[in-house]
Every structure is written in C-alpha cells, then in structure tokens.
C-alpha cells in the first residue's frame, strides 16, 4: 500500500489529539484574551487524577469522567482565585501569572507520588484487541477512541460557540468586554466557564495521551507547549482553527518524517518542518488560518 495515504491517516490521528490538547488554549483565549501557559500542567493533573483513581480500582471510563469534572473545577478555581484579580491588568502581567501557575502546579504534582516516575494506564477491555485497518494502516482501538473523543469534543464546542446562547455570550465577551457588560453579561461568569471548560478538555487530552504514550509529568506538561504552534497556526481564537491546525501539524510532521528524514542525515525533521510552514503561514496571515483579523479604527 502507498505510503502517502498511511502517513496522512497517521497524521490525522495524532493531529486530532493535538487539536484536543490545543482546544483549552483556544477556549480561554476566545473568551478572555489570555494565553494560559499552565495548560500542560492542567493536562497532567487530569491525567494523573484519572490514573490515581484507576489505581484505586475505579473503572477507567468513570475515572476519566471524574478527572474531567475535577479539572473543570480546578479551572474554575484558578480563574476565581488568580485570574479574576487580573482583569484589566496589562496582558504581560496576566501571562506571567499563568507562567507562575505552571510552576506552582508542577511543584504540587511533584508532592504527589506521580511527580517523578513512569506510569501507564491499564487498558480497559473496550480498547484491547485488534483495531481496524485504513488504506493498509492498522489503527489501534486507543487511537480510534482518541480520534472519536477529540472530534466529539471539538464538534461539541464548535456547536456550543456557534449556536448556544452561552457560547455566543462568550464570544461577545471576547470581542468587547465593555460592550458585553453594558448589556448585562456577567463577564466573571463567562471567564470562569471558559477556564472550567478548558480544564475539562485538558483532562480528556491528558487521559488520551496517557493511553497512547504513558504518563510522565514531563511528557504530559510538555504537550501543552508542543501544541502551541497548533493554536498559532489555526488562530488563537478559533475552535475550527484548533482542529485544522492540529490536523495540519500532525500531517506535516508525518509527511516530513516519511519523506525528508531519509534525505536529511539523522532525520528528526518532524520537529522542525511544521515550524517552517508555521512561519510562512504567519508571514501571510499573522492572525493564523482561522483567527480573527483585528482591525483598529482610529
């Protein structure tokens, strides 16, 4: 079977996980214009909560749901305790708060038995056994579940932002906080909800990543930054952008690994090539593929 379709499929699979991991960035930025550099640590928190629960005998799927609920609440708590006080402060100060938070959460995870070490989920029965084959490329059930969960959540949030009143309210707040407040919108509530939703998606991403590649704090927290190009490429405030950006980065990684690694001594082009495309795209569309072009009228 041709290599190209296989690389494209593998790229879509990994890209959908990137998209899910990137979704948290988008949800927060879309409503509050804050870039959350602690997102990787929230992904790790969710994954380790789920893992800890499975170690206590809780069913894998239930553990995943509880972890999502826990990071939903964690996101809300972070917003309430730290971010709400920063409303109206310079953006660099808010970014520094999220960088500080990443260190604090990192440190807190280190106080648990999961801070250092290597862990792996025991695969639930539903995800064991033979997967399916697409264009000659075998896909494991974990990968299929990952793609379905990612696409389900991404689809759900796209619908939420476009069709639901609350979603439209969140977009309105992102667009103009003052205007939204003047029509009676609770900006605080919207911010809290955005952080909570980002927390929820973070746990989902963490559990999928944990299933696919195991659980280490460094690996899970690192994915938070690894998907940063995804949101930049897709557009920081676009859920569709996160999906397309994730897929594109996943596909570009695989294509470069498939076709360039054999030419470049040592290979490893997958780490670089997507960034070259990212730079080119940003030179043409600085706000990303689907990001909102902001026009300031003086």
């Amino acid at each position, binding site marked *: 079977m041709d290599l190209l379709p296989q690389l494209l499929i593998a790229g879509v699979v990994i890209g959908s996980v990137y998209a899910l991991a990137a979704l948290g960035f988008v949800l927060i930025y879309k409503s509050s214009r804050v870039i959350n550099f602690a997102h990787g640590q929230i992904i790790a928190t969710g994954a380790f909560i789920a893992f800890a629960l499975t170690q206590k005998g809780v069913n894998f799927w239930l553990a995943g749901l509880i972890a999502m609920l826990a990071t939903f609440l964690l996101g809300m708590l972070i917003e309430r305790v730290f971010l709400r006080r920063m409303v109206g402060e310079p953006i660099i100060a808010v970014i520094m708060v999220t960088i500080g938070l990443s260190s604090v959460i990192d440190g807190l995870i280190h106080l648990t038995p999961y801070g250092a070490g290597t862990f792996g989920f025991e695969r639930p029965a539903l995800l064991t056994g033979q997967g399916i084959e697409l264009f000659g490329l075998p896909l494991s059930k974990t990968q299929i579940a990952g793609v379905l969960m990612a696409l389900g959540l991404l689809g759900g949030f796209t619908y939420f932002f476009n069709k639901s009143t609350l979603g439209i309210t969140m977009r309105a707040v992102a667009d103009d906080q003052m205007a939204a407040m003047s029509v009676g919108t609770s900006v605080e509530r919207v911010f809290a909800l955005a952080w909570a939703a980002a927390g929820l998606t973070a746990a989902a991403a963490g559990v999928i990543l944990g299933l696919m*590649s*195991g659980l280490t*704090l*460094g*690996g899970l927290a690192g994915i938070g930054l690894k998907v940063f190009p995804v949101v930049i490429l897709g557009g920081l405030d676009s859920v569709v952008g996160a999906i397309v950006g994730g897929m594109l980065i996943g596909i570009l990684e*695989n294509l470069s690994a498939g076709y360039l690694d*054999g030419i470049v001594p040592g290979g490893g082009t997958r780490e670089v090539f997507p960034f070259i495309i990212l730079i080119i795209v940003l030179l043409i569309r600085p706000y990303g593929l689907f990001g909102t072009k902001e026009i300031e009228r003086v």
Partner: protein
Amino acid sequence: MKKTLILSALVSLSFAAAQKTVTLPWSGAITGPTSDAGASYAAGVEDYCKYANSQKMLPGITLNCVIRDDQYNNANTQRNFEDFVANLNAPVFLGYATGGALQLKSVIQETKIPTLTASYHIGIIDAPDNTYTFLPVSSYSENIVALLEYVAKKERGAKVALVVNPSPFGRDPVVDARKAAERLGLKITDVQEVGGNNLDNTALLKRLEAQGAKYIINQNTAGPVANILKDAKRLGLLGKMQFMGAHYTGGEDLTKLAGDAAKDFIWATSYYLYDEATQPGIILAKKIGAQFKRAADTIRSVHYTSGMMASAIAIEAMKRAGANPDAAGVYKGLISMNGSRAFNPGFAVGPVTFSARDHIGAESLRLLQADATGNFKAITGAQRSAMFQLVHPMK
C-alpha cells in the same frame, strides 16, 4: 551527679569535635526532563549515604548527604557544583546528566574534584580533561557495541538501524557503533533521531521496514522507545524486527509504558535487577529502601540501584582516603580500586575497577530480554565487549 553530668557533656563535646563532617553531594533532575529516572537515582544516592552514616562506614566521619535538583539544566548543575566545591568543601561530585557532565569537564579538571555521573557517555571520560571523571559502569557505547556483537553472532550481514535521542546522550554511541558494525560485517541502514515528544512513529517504522532493517537498536530513554514498540506492535512489525537498547531504554519503566509491546525487547545493562532477589546488592538495596521507607516503585527501579552504586563508590573512595578525605585522597582511593583491591558493592554484574587509565567502574554487562510478563531475564552472562575495546581504545 553534677560531676558526672559535666564529664559526660565533655565526652560528648570531644566526640562531636572529633567527628568530622564531609559532604557527599549530588546534583541531578528530580524535576524536569528525565526526572522519571532522576528521582529514583537521587533516592538511591541519598539513602546509601544515610545508610553509610547509620552503619558508621567512615570512622570519625559523618556524611552530609546533599541532594539538589538541577531540573536537568546545565547552568543549575554548574551552580550546584561550584557551591559544593566552594562552600561545602565537597571532595567528590556525583552528577547526573550528559550535558552537565560534558560542560563541567574542564572545570572538574581545573578543580581536581573526582566526579561520577549517572550518564555513561564515553565522552565524559575521553581525553582531554578526563583525569578526574569516572563512569560507575560500562558506557552507552559499550552497551550498543555489545548488542551489535550479539546481532552478528545471530545473523552475519544483518541489517541494523540505530534510533537515538536527538542530544549528545543519544548521539554518543553512533560513531563507535558504525566502526563496530563494519568490523562485525553488519550493515547500518539508517541512523534516526527520535525525541521524547514523538507520539507517532509510523513514518519511521515504515521506512526502516522498507530498508529491510531487522534489528533496531535504541539509545534513548524508555518513553520514546515504548512509543516505538507500541507503534511497531500496531503495524505488525514486532515479529519481523528485533528491538534492543542501551541502559536507559529498558527496565520497569519500559514495561510499564509499553505493556505487552515490550515483550522480547533486548536490553544491555550492567546492573542487577530487583527480581534477582538472591544477589547481595539487591538484598541490600531492598533493605535500605525499607529502612528509609521508599515507595515500592522506587525500590524496584534500576535507577535506585544505580544511585546507590554511585554513592557506594564515592563512600568507598573516601574510606580509602583515610581520616581526612579531601579531593586528592578520594581520587587516590578511586584509582586504587583494582586487582585484589577492586570494590564490589554488589549492585552491578562485575566489580568496580579503576586506575589512572581505567575510568570505567563495573565494565561487565549483560543482555536481558523481556518476557511476556514484562520481566527482564538475562540471556547472556556478565561479559565485556571485545569489539568495543578495539573501536574505542581508552587513552
């Protein structure tokens, strides 16, 4: 009564005054990249050091066991090293990362502080600036060359691919592996770099399959290797390709991450494993782990044993340095470990032997293979790689 109290106080004071404190410092990654290995390693160093105090291994000396997290950051390692030497008067340095050790080589040479690292990069003990640097066990290069010798014995002319970490740690054995493969009549089809965040290896494995590579030798940490193994299983390549790797690729970390995809993985290491319950070193490691109430996972880790090994070597060198273990004394203590005075703490498959020219401690290694339950079983006895000594003669 009063006289007795005064007398006993004086005796205690004089005892305390006679009791010298010497620092045994370690700097490595308890947090940050590779901390999954580093945290257990640090625990091993610390526990053995405390155990030495509890056993009064060094008469008249109390060890100040200093464990510092450098977050796998070379600048932090250097700062820690300078603090240990300048302020704590440490006569020895226990390091961790390849990058930090390579960066510190000239400083170590200048300060003459004997150094043992958790990195087994051969460049750490290669000239120049190699008088005071020591590897506790065989190098990554020797691990890889031993695996190549194993392949050559099984299948002359076999096609081999190397998959390495994109760092000095990963690239270290490539030159020696190429030389050895040529002498052994093996064909290296590809050398590819795979990092820790690589979640999909379809492209890599498809290319290696197209090249006809049958033996895939990894120089990496367990995480990336586990991802490769899981992808190889998904692609139906586990039966067609034999995956192998150097010290940091294998062990419990690999089987925890890769699950049943780790089955048949061949691992080169110099250390005994937790399940080898009759080995004196393992018995001791378990006893110390229990004494200091370490988690079961920590005690099971080969990195816990490795940390103890480094600590044990440093403490033995101090012991040989006598009542006043300064850096010069520790250095002499280290290079005295040979012949009938070789040191065997029991953690590795051979005794630790150093001399002014030989800076590799336990030179022997074994190849082990993962079984269906995820346990590694030895498939060779303790051995040295004859080919390694040909392709990389120590100067």
